[in-house]
């Protein structure tokens, strides 16, 4: 039956000719079978529990079999039949053969939709695996080559003012770049977070012609290349206004780059807040402001945090705007408004452009530090806002319970006409002293 319906669903999309044989299968007829009253009831057999496992042994055997066969076949191709070479080539060829063999094996006992399902499943699994593998290789390779400078403690405590290209790794460090990065990103975030979230809220809460215009402009600006943002600040702040390159100029460039990204992803997240939650808040008499503050923002909190994380991560790792606006330095500089400043990615870039081996090693070390910094920020953000909407920690749960109790107390006190300290406005005198929430106008007009 599964098979028949599977074909039916696929048919609607493919517009393939129906295979009539499938519809006259005996199993299809068996579905409407009813037991005749006078039929002999077979002796009852103890029912065995059905297996609900989604992976069958035969699937695994097929996979392993075609993998082994493809590796064998490719080895034969590479070492005996054709003059091919290269590790990557071997992997690619054997993978192609593997998929073909697996499709062939599956098609021996399954119908076409199932074969297609299995092939897609294998391809999806392997491509996802490739991406994860490649991402891990990026991390491992960077740490592998950067481990040597990282073992020297001076790498984290000194700046590069005393270290020339020929100095050993035991002299010089990148603390100045860490400081520079932190100063720049803090200044950029101080502008981006409030302005970005506010604009995203504006886009979702006050729809209209102007909001549409703002959204269009922001969407257009999402793709503003970071180097163009850097060039803009370079041309305005440094060339036209005549300021020197500084950390502040760099953080402005980062802000221009980060702002549209944060707004756009925050807007998408806020639009996904279920409308019925907001409507419920409005129906309970909350104003727009209260609805946003108590319903929309908390519901979207984890998504908003993700939006800010992704924005921060891009801002912190961006080299090009900083390259144009901060000016590179090898000294400590704590003042973002005067003198050149450097950041971790910019320092990495300067290091690896040097031909000296120690400098390249330092470059990888700096990149590793940068990655660790990103991971730490990421972990903090996850810990704060990584939960789904409505998922609370034990502490939050307790505080919500307490708050709910307080509210309950307050409401009942009001119903009884007792003034509590929590409310500023006095309950109005009513003709009917004992009311129920149904006829209470107080909630509807805040």
């Amino acid at each position, binding site marked *: 039956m599964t098979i028949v319906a599977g074909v039916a669903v696929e048919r609607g999309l493919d517009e393939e000719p129906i295979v009539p044989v499938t519809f006259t299968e005996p199993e299809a007829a068996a579905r409407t079978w009813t037991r005749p009253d006078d039929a002999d009831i077979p002796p009852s057999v103890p029912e065995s529990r059905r297996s609900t496992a989604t992976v069958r042994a035969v699937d695994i055997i097929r996979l392993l079999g075609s993998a082994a066969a493809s590796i064998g076949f490719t080895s034969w191709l590479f070492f005996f039949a054709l003059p091919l070479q290269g590790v990557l080539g071997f992997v690619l060829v054997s993978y192609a053969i593997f998929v073909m063999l697996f499709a062939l094996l599956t098609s021996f006992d399954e119908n076409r939709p199932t074969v297609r399902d299995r092939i897609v499943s294998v391809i999806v699994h392997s491509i996802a695996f490739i*991406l994860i593998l490649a991402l891990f290789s990026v991390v491992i390779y960077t740490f592998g080559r950067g481990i040597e400078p990282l073992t020297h403690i001076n790498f984290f405590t000194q700046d590069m003012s005393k270290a020339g290209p020929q100095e050993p790794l035991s002299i010089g460090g990148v603390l100045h770049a860490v400081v520079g990065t932190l100063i720049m990103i803090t200044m950029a975030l101080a502008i981006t977070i409030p302005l970005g979230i506010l*604009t995203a809220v504006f886009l979702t809460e006050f729809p209209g012609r102007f909001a549409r215009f703002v959204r269009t402009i922001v969407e257009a600006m999402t793709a503003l290349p970071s180097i163009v943002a850097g060039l803009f600040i370079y041309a305005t702040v440094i060339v036209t206004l005549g300021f020197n390159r500084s950390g502040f100029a760099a953080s402005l460039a980062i802000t221009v780059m980060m702002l549209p990204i944060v707004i756009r992803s925050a807007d998408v997240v806020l639009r996904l807040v279920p409308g019925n939650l907001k409507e419920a808040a409005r129906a309970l008499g909350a104003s727009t402001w209260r609805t946003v503050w108590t319903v929309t923002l908390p519901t979207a909190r984890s998504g908003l945090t993700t939006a800010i994380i992704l924005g921060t991560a891009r801002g912190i790792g961006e080299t090009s705007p900083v390259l144009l606006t901060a000016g590179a330095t090898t000294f400590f500089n704590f003042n973002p408004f005067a003198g050149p400043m450097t950041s971790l990615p910019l320092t990495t870039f300067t290091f690896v452009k040097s031909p000296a081996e120690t400098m390249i090693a330092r470059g990888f070390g700096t990149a590793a530090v940068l990655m660790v910094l990103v991971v730490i920020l990421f972990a903090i953000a996850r810990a704060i806002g990584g939960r789904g909407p409505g998922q609370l920690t034990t502490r939050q749960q307790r505080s919500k319970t307490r708050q709910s109790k307080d509210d309950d107390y307050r409401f009942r006190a009001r119903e009884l006409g007792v003034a509590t300290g929590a409310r500023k406005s006095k309950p109005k005198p009513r003709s009917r002293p004992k009311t129920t929430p149904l006829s209470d106008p107080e909630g509807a007009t805040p």
Partner: protein
Amino acid sequence: MIVDHEADSTATDLLLLESPAEVAHDSPRSLASAIDRPDAAFRVTAYGGGSIVVTIMLLVGIFLLVQGSAALQVAGPGFLAEQNWDPTGKFGIAAVLAGTIFIALTAIFFALPLALATALYISEYAPAKIKSGLVTIVDLMAAVPSIVYGLWGFFFLTPLVQPVSQWLTTYLGWIPIFTVNGFDPNDPLASPTVFAASTFIAGMVVALMVAPITSSIMREVFTQAPIGEREGALALGATKWGMIRSVVLPFGSGGIIGGTMLGLGRALGETIAVFLIISPVFVIQPHILEKGANSISALIALRYNEASKFEISALMAAGLALFLITLVVNFAASTIIARSRSGSQSD
């Protein structure tokens, strides 16, 4: 209570009967909602925030246009056709523009399947135990700075890809884009360095860089595909792939296009990784496997430092051209997304 209400309404009816003049004066109620003071303040603040953002964004665009126009007036329409970059003589962006597009297309060619499959894997196939871990890894990788990918591509990927490039040009060299000048497949001593610093390698690195963010957006939309329709498809006997094709992908098409376009925008503007890997050439280089490539952003990073005031203007014009391309890409994307069924209807 109900009894109470009925009694009230009866009383009102009686009242109306007694004085019909009141009925004539009854006019439709005003539907305007009263806005209290905090709410009004909130409205003003929100509009203010939107206005500030728009002002900043428009300022960037206008400034680019004004600054770039000086160079554009000198270069004329030849700005788009000239391959050479010599601000004292003839200069144009034909070479860098073509290079930018080649790199971005190569990147999207690799990034789209990578991102789509990873998003599908995480939202549909992955066991529940590792799902959140995978989401974290992909989000984290979207956060890894481009300079790190650049280092990886320059020192690690280049030697790995060279044999593949060599194989491609040896057996598929008859396809124009895979041709490599100066490489003879029959020469056993041919140096593999002709395959280094190519559009192909830069594109692969950029692909890896944009794949996580693209995948992250796609996955978010896929997981919001309505559970009722998923179960409906499965209950009709669809295979998992049948369900994905008939429910998840149509529902997530906005996310797929939006994510890809965002990736394309990033790929077009990517600077540092490309700048590290390529060796700049100022000719249109359609042979993606061959050494030498260029992009607008790499041009800006290469030239801004020793640029005269006029060359800055020329670079601005180049930046404006890059920006216009990404603008077109983005607007095309948002139009397509607006037409498709996107996640906004999920309540």
